[in-house]
């Protein structure tokens, strides 16, 4: 068990958030925009990490949560004329519902069976998006550029596509996900989840209803992923089936493995490194995925706990 240090943890988290906030005034335009996207996707990975990193359940269908949030928000705006915030609420609500329902079914399995069940449901959501093309506009998807009204707060009006608004909205989402994750893991519920991850049978013997705890983790994980999908739709103005594909379920797994499974900052680090790795290497060669794959293999061999996990093991044992 790691030695916890709430004070050091709070300072580190505040420092990371402050750094990300200040970066918006320093970064060149391209990286400014890239960081906005990384923070949204890192929030998605943090949702995934709650299930894998803290509960020990590996899902291969998390894109269904991300895309449920994205499509529920997008369709609310595109077809029903909702403004951003109510559409966001609808997105999260739908994701909570979907993740809870899926949890009720999928959590009756475990291990590889759980992996397969989530994969199958993920594919079912993807194919449903293609099938109900009258609403989803199929593979091509739709844009929200013309339909989305600016966000009005008091007398001020903010365009979702404004770079400054986009960055700060992404930062707020990331901060929210980080705070929720940190509160969760120091809370009694989080302790039980970690106990389930370490030894579910023993946790049951202690009298905990592990099924309910896992259902809670599944719902929270899905809700955070769905929230990230909803925010992604609003900030980047595009809703498409590509976000429901299997690749988009594997992505948060890779980001989390790279950054550090079961670490709160690992998803951010993994998402950022992976994004820039692809960005840089794709400029050199069309075989960039080979390079990315080789680096990942080396990392898994050399540091199976991920980068933040390595830091925790070698330097900062209190790292959450």
């Amino acid at each position, binding site marked *: 068990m790691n030695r916890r240090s709430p004070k050091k943890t709070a300072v580190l988290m505040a420092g990371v958030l402050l750094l990300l906030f200040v970066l918006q005034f320093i970064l*060149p*335009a*391209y990286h400014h*925009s*890239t960081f906005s*996207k990384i923070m949204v996707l890192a929030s998605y990975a943090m949702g995934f990490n709650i299930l894998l990193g803290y509960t020990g359940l590996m899902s291969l269908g998390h894109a269904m949560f991300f895309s449920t949030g994205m499509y529920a928000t997008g369709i609310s705006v595109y077809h029903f004329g909702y403004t951003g915030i109510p559409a966001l609420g609808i997105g999260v609500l739908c994701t909570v519902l979907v993740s809870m329902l899926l949890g009720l079914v999928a959590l009756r399995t475990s291990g590889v069976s759980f992996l397969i069940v989530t994969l199958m449901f993920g594919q079912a959501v993807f*194919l449903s998006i*293609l*099938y109900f*093309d009258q609403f989803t*506009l*199929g*593979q*091509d*998807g*739709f*844009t*929200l*550029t*013309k339909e989305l009204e600016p966000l009005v707060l008091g007398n001020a009006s903010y365009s979702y*596509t404004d770079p400054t608004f986009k960055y700060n909205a992404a930062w707020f989402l990331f901060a929210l996900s980080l705070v929720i994750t940190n509160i969760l893991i120091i809370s009694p519920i989080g302790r039980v989840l970690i106990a389930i991850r370490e030894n579910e049978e023993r946790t049951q013997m202690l009298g905990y209803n592990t099924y309910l705890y896992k259902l809670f983790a599944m719902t929270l994980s899905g809700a955070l992923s769905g929230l990230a999908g909803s925010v992604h739709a609003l900030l*980047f*103005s*595009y809703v*498409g*089936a*590509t*976000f429901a594909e299997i690749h*988009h379920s594997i992505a948060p797994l890779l980001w989390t493995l790279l950054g550090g499974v079961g670490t709160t900052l690992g998803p951010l680090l993994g998402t950022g490194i992976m994004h820039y790795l*692809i*960005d840089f290497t*794709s*400029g050199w060669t*069309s075989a*960039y*995925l080979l390079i990315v794959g080789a680096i990942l293999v080396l990392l898994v061999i050399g540091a199976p706990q991920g980068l933040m996990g390595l830091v925790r093991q070698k330097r900062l044992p209190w790292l959450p």
Partner: protein
Amino acid sequence: MEGKEKKPEQSVKNKSQISRRSLFGTTAAVAGAGVLASNLTDPIVRSAYAAGSDAPIRIGFQVHRTGIGATYGKWYERTTNAAAKYINEHGGMGGRPVEIVPEDDGTDPKRGADVVEKFATQHKVDFVYGTLFSHVVMGSSPRAGELKIPYFVVSEGYHVASGALNRYVFQPCITDVRSQISAMSGWIFNNLGKKMTLIYPDYAFGYNHRDYASAAAEKHGAKISAKLAIPPTASSFTRYFAKIPKDTEVIYHVMVGPGVLTFVREMGEHFGSNRPEIFGFIDSLEGVALDSPGLDFLNGTYFWEAMPRYADGYPTHGEKVYRNAVGVDANGASKSDSKDVSTYSHMFGCWETLFAIKEAVEQSGYRDKRDYANLIETFEGFQGFNEGIAHPQGSKMFSGKSHQCYGQQFISKVENSKFDVVHRTSIEDGYYEPETDYTKLPL
């Protein structure tokens, strides 16, 4: 345009120079003569640009080097490089050389938007261009509109003309699916049969075909006997062939992707020699040699081609220059590798679009990004493009309102594992009234 460089010869048609009727009339007249004049109005008339002239015009090329569009991307890149080389050898754009800045988007809408961002804010290109797959266009267009950078796509999708995108997105030199189907349906129903079964992939691309082919059938008094949607995950197709009604006179198929060869083979096994007429879209066979094993069954069937793969299909001067410049042999394969078959019915769009950009640059007097508004309004003033070296596929009509062109199509019959052109449509055959007006959107 007032105050713009005046040129003795242009490939572009402005409002003052042409009317829709005259364009249709001209096309119809030359079409009747059998071969369109190919080099009457060519823009390549300037001498080389002066040494030490302005910096290059940088064009960000969003290329599908990897992912599902890689076969197309390879040929799009070859065509783009050939067009840029040709333009640079003949005076550049407005006297400035063209520099192509490629970035792989992985045929992925997520990456596509990042690539547009990178072009605009890191590479600082003048324009973004070249995207094929429609979902990548959809994913990338919002960012192009937000960044207010002109974005020229070569996609064939109906997305631009539908009004779903924004004022910065143009598709000037490749026709959309709706127009293609409208153009060919009359010939199909009159020559192959009036009872049609549609076989299409069960996603947006297929739905476009389903919907517009159904509308065309109604217009021509034909009947759609069955509509068979094939899931994208299908790897075997025999059970779908069993659903084809016995009274079907013509099968219309638009299958794409890795399952195409299996699809054709199983269709052959199902029907044998006793088959209805079959009409397909070349998308199924782009980059595929017709003499590939299992494709014998296609002999005697018909295909749409946007531009004939074989050199004898449309032997104009412009086509010969284009084919030679890109490095394609008479059979539609690479000159250096006869097994490397081109995507001939799509890649011309890259060549032509670069020339269309060149016209807009020169007519608007574009110097840098401050001239975007003027360039876009100039482009929206274009009414079409003349056939020639710059537009080897044929003349185009262009709608400034919908940012979409209309052009001729070809119908070819497979004979001895080779395409023979049997019909060429007019531009008017594929014309429909624009349903959107991007010019009303703010710049």
